C-alpha cells in the first residue's frame, strides 16, 4: 500500500532514493537541490537508511566518490544543480565511459552570469553529450517514481549507463504536492539489489578500470557505448510498463502525447511547463481549436522516431526551450528539427524560448505561442520576410 504525503519535489526525490536503498550517497549542497540532500542526511542520521553518506567538499568530488563507489558495485546516488553540474562536468563522461550506473538528480537552474538561483534548463544542456540518460519530469509524483525507474534503467546490462533525473528548480523542487510513497516491500520486490558487474572491481577478479585506449581501439569503445545508450529508449518503455503493473502508474516512456491525435498545432515541452501546457491545450480545445501537447521525457537518447511519429500530422510544430544555445537557438529545437528531417516530416517548426532565470511561463505565454503557430501554419513562415522562427516568451522589452 502506498502512503499519501504532502511533499515538495526535493522531498519526493529523497523518498524515492530512500526506497531504492543506495549503498553510498556523496553529495554537495547547492540551491535549489539542498532540501533533497538534507532530507537524505536526516534519513541516514536517524538510522532510517543504511547508507554510507559522504560529506564531500565539492561537486567534483561528489561525482568522483560516486565513481569510486560504483566501480566496486555499490548503488550510488548524488544530486546537484547549475554551477555544481558544470564543476563536476569532467567526471560525467568518465562515469558513462566506465559504464557505471550512477543515478543523479539535477535541479535545473540558471547558469551564471548574471547570477541567478532560479530555474531554467541551461545547466543540463551543457552536458547532453556526456553519455548519460537524460530524463525530465513534470511533477513530484513523477520525480519520485522516476528515481525508482532510473535505477532499473541504469543497472540493466543492456544499457549500463548513468542516469540524470532533471527536475525544474523551485517550480518543482520547492512546490508541495500530494505524492504517493510506494511501500518499501513493493519497491524491494521490483528493484533487486545491484549485482557487481563483470567490468567492475572485485576481490576475485581484479580489474583495471577507466583505461587508456589509443587510436587503434578508442573509436570502438565510443561507438559501442553510444549504441548501448540508444537502447535506453526502448528499455524505458519496458521499465515503465513493468512499473505500471507493479505500482499502478505509467509515465509513458520517452514521450507522452496529450491530445495530439488530430491536432493541427502541437507544442513540445520538457519538464514542469508541460503542466501549464496541458491546461492551455484543454482550454483551447474547449474553444474548438485543434491543439496538442508532446511532453518529451527523454532527451538522451533522443527518441527521434517517436517524436516524428507524433508530429507527422501537424500543420505546425512549436518547441519550447528553457535554454538558449548562445549563437544559435534552443537546444531541444535543434534536436527536434533534426528528428523531423530524418523522418521526412515537413511540418514548419518554431522555437519558443522562455522561463530563463526563473521567469514565469504563464498560460497567456503559451496561448500566444499557439497563436504564433497558427500564423506559421497559415503560411506566415514562408520567405525571408516571414515570421521569426525563434521567439522569446514573456520578454520585458523588444528582443
Amino acid at each position, binding site marked *: 500500500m502506498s502512503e499519501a504525503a504532502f511533499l515538495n519535489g526535493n522531498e519526493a526525490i529523497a523518498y524515492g532514493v530512500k526506497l531504492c536503498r543506495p549503498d553510498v550517497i556523496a553529495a554537495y549542497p547547492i540551491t535549489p537541490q539542498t532540501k533533497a540532500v538534507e532530507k537524505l542526511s536526516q534519513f541516514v542520521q536517524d538510522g532510517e537508511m543504511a547508507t554510507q553518506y559522504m560529506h564531500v567538499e565539492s561537486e567534483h568530488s561528489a561525482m568522483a566518490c560516486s565513481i569510486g563507489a560504483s*566501480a566496486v558495485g555499490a548503488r550510488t546516488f548524488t544530486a546537484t544543480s547549475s554551477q555544481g553540474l558544470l564543476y563536476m562536468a569532467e567526471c560525467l563522461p568518465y562515469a558513462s565511459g566506465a559504464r557505471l550506473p550512477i543515478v543523479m538528480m539535477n535541479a535545473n537552474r540558471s547558469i551564471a552570469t548574471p547570477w541567478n538561483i532560479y530555474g531554467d534548463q541551461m545547466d543540463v544542456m551543457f552536458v547532453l553529450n556526456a553519455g548519460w540518460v537524460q530524463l525530465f519530469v513534470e511533477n513530484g509524483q513523477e520525480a519520485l517514481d522516476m528515481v525508482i525507474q532510473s535505477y532499473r534503467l541504469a543497472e540493466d546490462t543492456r544499457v549500463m549507463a548513468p542516469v540524470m533525473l532533471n527536475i525544474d528548480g523551485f517550480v518543482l523542487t520547492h512546490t508541495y504536492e500530494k505524492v504517493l510513497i510506494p511501500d518499501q516491500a513493493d519497491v524491494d520486490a521490483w528493484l533487486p539489489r545491484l549485482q557487481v558487474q563483470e567490468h567492475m572491481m572485485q576481490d576475485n577478479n*581484479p580489474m583495471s578500470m577507466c583505461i*587508456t585506449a589509443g587510436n587503434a581501439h578508442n573509436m570502438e569503445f565510443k561507438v559501442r557505448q553510444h549504441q548501448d545508450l540508444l537502447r535506453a529508449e526502448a528499455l524505458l518503455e519496458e521499465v515503465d510498463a513493468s512499473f505500471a503493473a507493479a505500482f499502478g502508474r505509467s509515465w509513458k516512456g520517452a514521450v507522452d502525447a496529450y491530445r495530439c491525435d488530430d491536432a493541427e498545432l502541437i507544442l513540445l515541452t520538457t519538464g514542469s511547463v508541460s503542466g501549464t501546457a496541458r491546461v492551455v491545450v484543454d482550454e483551447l480545445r474547449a474553444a474548438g481549436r485543434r491543439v496538442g501537447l508532446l511532453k518529451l521525457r527523454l532527451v538522451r537518447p533522443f527518441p527521434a522516431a517517436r517524436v516524428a511519429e507524433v508530429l507527422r500530422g501537424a500543420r505546425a510544430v512549436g518547441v519550447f526551450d528553457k535554454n538558449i544555445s548562445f549563437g544559435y537557438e534552443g537546444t531541444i529545437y535543434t534536436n527536434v528539427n533534426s528528428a523531423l528531417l530524418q523522418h521526412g516530416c515537413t511540418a514548419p517548426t518554431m522555437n519558443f524560448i522562455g522561463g530563463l532565470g526563473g521567469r514565469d511561463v504563464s498560460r497567456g505565454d503559451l496561448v500566444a505561442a499557439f497563436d504564433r503557430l497558427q500564423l506559421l501554419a497559415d503560411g506566415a513562415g514562408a520567405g525571408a520576410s516571414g515570421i521569426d522562427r525563434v521567439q522569446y516568451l514573456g520578454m520585458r522589452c523588444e528582443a
Partner: protein
Amino acid sequence: MSANMSVNMKQSGSAGASGAAASGAAAAAGSGSQQIKWTARNLPEQEHFYGHKACGGCGESLALRLALKVLGPDAYLSLPAGCMAAVSFIYPNMAFRNNAIITPFASTAAVATGVAAGLKALGKADPLSVAFAGDGGTADIGIQALSGAIDRGERFIYICTDNEAYMNTGIQKSGLTPFGAATTTTPAGKVIHGSITEKKNMFEIVAAHGIRYAATASMGYLEDFMNKVQKAKDCGGPSYIHVFAPCPTGWGHGSEETLAVAKQVVDSGLWYLAEFEGGEFRLNRNPETFIPVRDYLKRQARFKHLQDADIAEIERLRDAKWQYLRSHWTV
C-alpha cells in the same frame, strides 16, 4: 559488455610472476597485530605491477612496485591521469595485478575514498583503498579532494610520489618543484634561473588536518619507505606518505643513478625523513653534518645552470628549514 572501459590482466594476456610465492614474512603481515619489519631479505617475490612502460630508472614506478609488495593483492588502487596511469593501463595491456582505477586528475583521493565507502557498504570488512599520485596530482590540482578525504576520516592510504614537476606532460613546474630547478615552464633563462619558488610544505599541510599517520620517505632509503607503508596500512585511519622519487628523464641524470640521487637528497639535507603520529612530528634522521648540496645538484641537468650565489641560497633555505625542524619537532 565488451564495450566496458575495463580490462584485467588475464584478458590482457600479460605474462609473468603469477606463480611467485609470498615469503613467510608477507604471510605474517596479513595475520594482524604483530608489526612486521620489512627488509630486502623478507620482501615478497610476488609482483603486482609489471609489464608497464615507465622509463628506465623511474623512481615512481619503483615506489609503486615496492609499496604493492607490502600492501599485497587486496589493495584497491586509485591513480590519477599521470605517468603511472599512462604507462600501465594501455588497452589491451594492463600492468596491475590488483584492482586499479584511473581517476579524473583532480580527484584521486575522492575516488579512493569512494572505493572504500563502496566496499564498506557492500559488507567488506576492513577494505584497503590506496591512492598513488604524483606531486602535481597531490599538491596542486588534487589538494582540495585530498583535504576533503582526510577530513572525512575515511580509512585509506595516500602515497604521493614526488618527482618535483609535471613529468607526464613534459617536465613543467609543479607546486613541489624546488628553488632553482629548470623545468620546461621555468627554464634556466637569461634573467630568471629556473624556479623561483620553494616546495610547498605538503607533509605539514597534510599533518595539519590531524591525520592519523603521515610520513616522508625517499627511494634512497627503501626499507624506511616500505616500513612506513606498513605503518600506514596498520594505522586504521587516513594516512599519507610523501616519497621522494627521482625522474631520470625529467631531472637529467642516469637511469642507474635514481637510488643514489634519492639518497643524496636526504644526506645533503634537501629532503628529510619524518613522521607525524599521535599529533606529533618526529625526525627519523638528524644528521650532524650534511654532504655538500653541490654534489647532489650538479649531477642533475635541471640544476646545471646554477651559479654559486644560487647554490648559496639553496643552502640558506635548507639551514633555515632544519633550524625550524630541530627546534619544533621531536628529534
